[in-house]
């Protein structure tokens, strides 16, 4: 796919989507520092640790992770990553994560990032995309994915805990990617 991609958000703010690249480390660190604890809690890794960010950059260009960032006036305002396995029973399934600065939510930025990841997944020949989301903490994301033809494949009751120790259900949301004929 050709990058950078120019997008205009609902409020006419202009952003650019491009792959994460060497030299973005400070920008990405700054980005995650502004993300609320509850949002970071839902991620698999502690993004406030320099070692986490460093590992991402060490893995730049690997086949198993594809990261994109969205910039507005040279500041990262959104991040998306697609994770794939090179071997095994679920190598046809991609997992992804999207996180957007609070002030850039509800402006379709998440949608543009998701669309880019879906296209990347299709280019990689994946058959499905999966996202694990926590009910009560990520309801907006769950609703957004439903609009993108993701469906709730499974529900794990009281599986996740929030920072206060409260239990939440976890939804496994899946979207099938069609290689040939569209289901339109």
């Amino acid at each position, binding site marked *: *796919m*050709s990058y950078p*991609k*120019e*997008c*205009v*958000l*609902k*409020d*006419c703010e*202009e952003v650019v989507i491009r792959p994460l690249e060497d030299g973005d480390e400070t920008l990405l660190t700054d980005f995650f520092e502004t993300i609320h604890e509850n949002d970071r809690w839902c991620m698999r890794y502690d993004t406030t640790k320099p070692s986490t960010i460093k590992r991402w950059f060490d893995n730049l260009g690997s086949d198993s992770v594809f990261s994109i960032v969205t910039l507005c006036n040279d500041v990262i305002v959104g991040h998306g990553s697609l994770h794939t396995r090179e071997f095994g029973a679920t190598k046809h399934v991609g997992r992804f994560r999207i996180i957007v600065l609070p002030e850039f939510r509800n402006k*379709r930025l998440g949608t*543009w990032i998701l*669309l880019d990841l*879906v*296209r990347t997944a*299709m*280019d990689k*020949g994946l058959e499905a995309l999966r996202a694990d989301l926590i009910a009560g903490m990520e309801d907006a994301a769950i609703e957004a994915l439903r609009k993108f033809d993701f469906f709730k494949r499974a529900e794990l009751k009281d599986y996740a805990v929030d920072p206060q120790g409260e239990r939440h259900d976890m939804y496994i949301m899946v979207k099938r990617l*069609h*290689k*040939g*004929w*569209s289901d*339109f």
Partner: protein
Amino acid sequence: MISKSGWSPIQHEIILSTNAGNIRIRSFCRAGEIHGYAFDGEFGRHAQYRSLYTKKESLEQDAVREGVNVVLAIDPGGTIIGFGVLDYPEEGARWFDLGAGVMMELKVIEVCRRWRSAGVAAAIMNLMVAHETVDDMILYLVGYSWTWDLDGAEKTAQAYRKMLIDLFEPHGFQELQTNEPNICLKPENIFMARIGERIPEDMRNQFKWLRFGVSP
């Protein structure tokens, strides 16, 4: 004939040599000329695909409108085996809002199945964009995956999409984002545009905002 933007189309012809004989590619074909050719029977219904144009009369109707560029590929026997149409967007379409005559849509490009992979589509494209006012316009195309002949091409939607990008990019088209609802229906759909070199900055911005349905 003078077009909406005041230019006079000049008809061009190129000869494409193939193993099965020479193919004539002709631009700005008018209705009378189209009427004189046969229309290949492969432009029709197939098991998983239906051509966008199944009758040459559809091409004739396009050719009647001023400024529309109907490009034909004609085999040695005088049969249309490929065609392309560059047309103005209809009034009411989103892309008309930039002003009459500013944008033109690459409405269709098709080569019948047995002539594919012979360079016919690329030759049609050469004449679709080969005229003197192309740099004063924004040309665009929308690719809806449900109109693609995946069966005949034996490609996945993504591979077909890439093939289209490879066909149009050499002619200055680039993939652009838009929130146009029909295009957003499927991630494999594609929107591409070629912004003419003489398009002023303010119009480029208007086009950008139009793509996202906003007006600052």
